[in-house]
């Protein structure tokens, strides 16, 4: 093979423009491919973000438009009605659920502050639930415990923070406050008015939407107990076996609509909530896949077109080589090596270009740095594509008969 490189370079020097075009085409395709695949990867990992609640078994029913003054009667009555449905394992009333875009943002700090100049306040999602909510959601306690009955019964909403004194926080939030050591038993504050003891740490639960800075902040959630008498608790969460889920949801909606005929009752399974939240990302990912596929096809056809032209132009030379003893394999090898050389030049430029595009996107859009392994992966893909595209024309070249040498062009 190495014997062939010099004549190939010599012939490429004669066909500079088509050679440059192939290199350019491969370089551009490589640059766009690396970035597009990276964007696909980011979206796929978002769509798959873990969320430690019983995602397959939960349904949510929203009740809106009831009299807030009646909440103390309505909520226990609604909870009882839902609990009575066959197949229901647990129920709770909440203020919001993950990935619903209905945020309830609060802030907590490890220090009480009177001067209000506290920079240590960490923004987080406040999830409020009635007694038994931890089990209903399927939270996974990593350390500590759920709330006990007294803690749940004693907590009211004071303006927008619960007046109780206990909180459950996610693992990510615990690590943010106390990077070393356990969080259980420690205190969290908001101003000098609210203070909470961390009774447990649960596996990471997502917020209603991505807010705040950094990847990890999507997991900054805290859970508070609340007694069932506040109109903020308008989301009923029902847990059942996944097989019963759709029926339980239908019956639940029916039960609550009957109890509150003038209210607006809407239900969704948590799977639907999650699908809807990530729907944009999913369609963007598919669009990227489509563009990549079409672009690779276009590039391949371009290589086929140019190499075919090339082969057509050199039929006589190929014939001469065959006549003086070159085998078909050698002719095939010649065109494949040529393509390999052009692809190598192309992917080298392409990787640089891909890196540059990534830097530009990072500066102007919310984009993170592309891990290095995307570059060689893209390069190998284009190498393979080049070899595949050149195969047809190269085979045609190899089938040129030595007689061709005697014909004039």
């Amino acid at each position, binding site marked *: 093979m190495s014997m062939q490189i010099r004549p190939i370079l010599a012939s490429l020097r004669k066909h500079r423009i088509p050679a440059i075009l192939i290199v350019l085409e491969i370089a551009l*395709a490589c640059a766009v491919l690396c970035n597009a695949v990276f964007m696909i990867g980011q979206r796929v990992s978002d769509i798959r973000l873990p969320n430690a609640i019983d995602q397959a078994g939960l349904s949510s029913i929203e009740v809106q438009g009831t009299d807030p003054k009646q909440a103390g009667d309505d909520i226990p009555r609604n909870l009882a009605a839902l609990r009575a449905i066959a197949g229901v394992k647990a129920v709770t009333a909440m203020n919001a659920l993950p990935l619903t875009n209905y945020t309830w943002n609060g802030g907590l700090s490890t220090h009480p502050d009177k001067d209000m100049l506290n920079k240590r306040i960490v923004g987080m999602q406040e999830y409020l639930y009635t007694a038994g909510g931890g089990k209903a959601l399927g939270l996974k306690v990593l350390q500590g415990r759920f709330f006990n009955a007294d803690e749940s019964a004693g907590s009211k909403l004071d303006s*927008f923070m619960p007046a109780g004194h206990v909180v459950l926080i996610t693992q990510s939030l615990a690590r943010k406050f106390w990077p070393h050591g356990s969080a259980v038993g420690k205190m969290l504050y908001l101003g000098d008015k609210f203070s909470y003891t961390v009774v447990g740490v649960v596996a990471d639960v997502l917020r209603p939407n991505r807010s705040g800075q950094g990847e990890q902040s999507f997991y900054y959630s805290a859970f508070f107990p609340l007694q069932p008498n506040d109109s903020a608790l308008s989301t009923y969460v029902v847990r059942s076996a996944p097989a019963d889920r759709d029926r339980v949801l239908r019956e639940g909606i029916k039960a609550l609509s009957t109890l509150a005929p003038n209210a607006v009752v809407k239900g969704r399974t948590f799977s639907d909530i999650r699908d809807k939240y990530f729907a944009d990302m999913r369609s963007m990912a598919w669009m990227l896949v489509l563009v990549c596929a079409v672009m690779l096809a276009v590039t391949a056809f371009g290589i086929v077109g*140019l190499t075919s032209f090339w082969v057509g132009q050199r039929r006589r030379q190929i014939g001469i080589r065959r006549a003086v003893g070159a085998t078909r394999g050698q002719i095939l090898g010649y065109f494949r090596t040529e393509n390999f050389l052009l692809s190598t030049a192309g992917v080298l430029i392409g990787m640089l270009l891909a890196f540059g595009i990534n830097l530009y996107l990072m500066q102007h859009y919310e984009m993170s740095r592309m891990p290095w392994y995307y570059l060689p992966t893209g390069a190998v893909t284009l190498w393979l594509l080049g070899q595949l595209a050149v195969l047809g024309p190269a085979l045609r070249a190899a089938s040129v008969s030595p007689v061709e040498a005697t014909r004039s062009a």
Partner: protein
Amino acid sequence: MFGYYFELALCSLKRNKVLTALMVLAIALGIGASMTTLTVLHVLSGDPLPDKSAKLYYPQLDPRDLSGMHPGAEPPNQVSWMDGMNLLKAGRADRQALMTGGAVAIQPAESAIDPFFEDARFTTRDFFSMFDVPFQYGHAWGKAEDDNDARLVVLSQRINDKLFGGVDSTGKTLRMGGKDFRIVGVLDSWRPTPHFYDLTTGNYSESEGVYLPLLTAIDLKFPFNGSRDCWGNGTNADMKTGLCTWMQFWVQLDTPAKASAYKQFLINYSSQQKSLGVYQREPNVRLRGLMQWLDYSKVVPSDVHLQLWLALGFLVVCLVNTVGLMLAKFLRRSGELGVRRALGASRGSVFAQLLVEAGTVGLVGGIGGLLLAVLGLWFVRMQPSDYAALAHLDLPMLAATFFLAVSATLVAGLLPAWRACVLAPAPQLKAA
């Protein structure tokens, strides 16, 4: 001459159908992808009120306490109840409206329609005249009704169609949140894009279904929709303090002079509030025009920008590909071109002939690209995002498609045509 070249081009294109099809397809795909994304961007970054936007401004004040203050910080994106009311009562602008998003439970009289929740706008009356909102029936409410808790409502066309089958419903009564409201007006179809007057309820959300006087809705404690920022001891419970920002305040200022005067008024107002001890920070105001406000709020999703970049990258790949294919095609015809040159055609005319051929490919590719863009936009409309329904091709974008396709192919044809026409005719004739 052009006609003859065009004929020659068609002949030549017909001779090698596969190569021609590849070129046309590459152009069509590149143009289709670019035009789809460009159209989406064009629609999303458009002016919601082209006739009015230059006169509309969005004042921002900074009533927050000293916590977390740093120099050069932007004031909050909304105003507090207290500031909103003060500015509204001052009435320094040509028109002004204070508003917030909300939701109401609509309880239709006929039992055929189940009660449902509808997005509402709680606003003062200038909303309608300031934003040139078109009325189908009736009119907006008056100044007096703004102040005295009147139980009045203006419906959107959509809700009027749903509840009253599209007939003139003004004067009728509608039950909402357990209270009766008299319908005074019905809007014509109206959907400003983006939903500029309140971005907290979604950048491209649909217009609300019902419009109520602000004070009426707040006093009835109808549910609120949007975002709310509180500080110090501000709470959700009493929204009428100055410690939470949650409302939008818009003003119409007919001349630039009035705008700068209004900005001075905002600064004076802030200083006065500070000297009264209400504000703690130094005056920190903004008076952005409508388009500036949209720009500042970054309403166009960054995915849309990324898609555009990707599509343009794809178009470049397709064009480079076309350059290569065209080069192959033109050089293959060196013999024929040599004959033309030998018979007396100048370089210029050979060049022109080849460019006409390139342009023809561009034109056909443009038609293909247009079809693909129409298909692509249909696909975008199937998507779940709230802006999806807006993705339609308009006339300027249609013209742009052809312009882009033909000019891009001509540029792509320049190099191959030049290479082909500078070949000396003699060797070509000899070889042929």
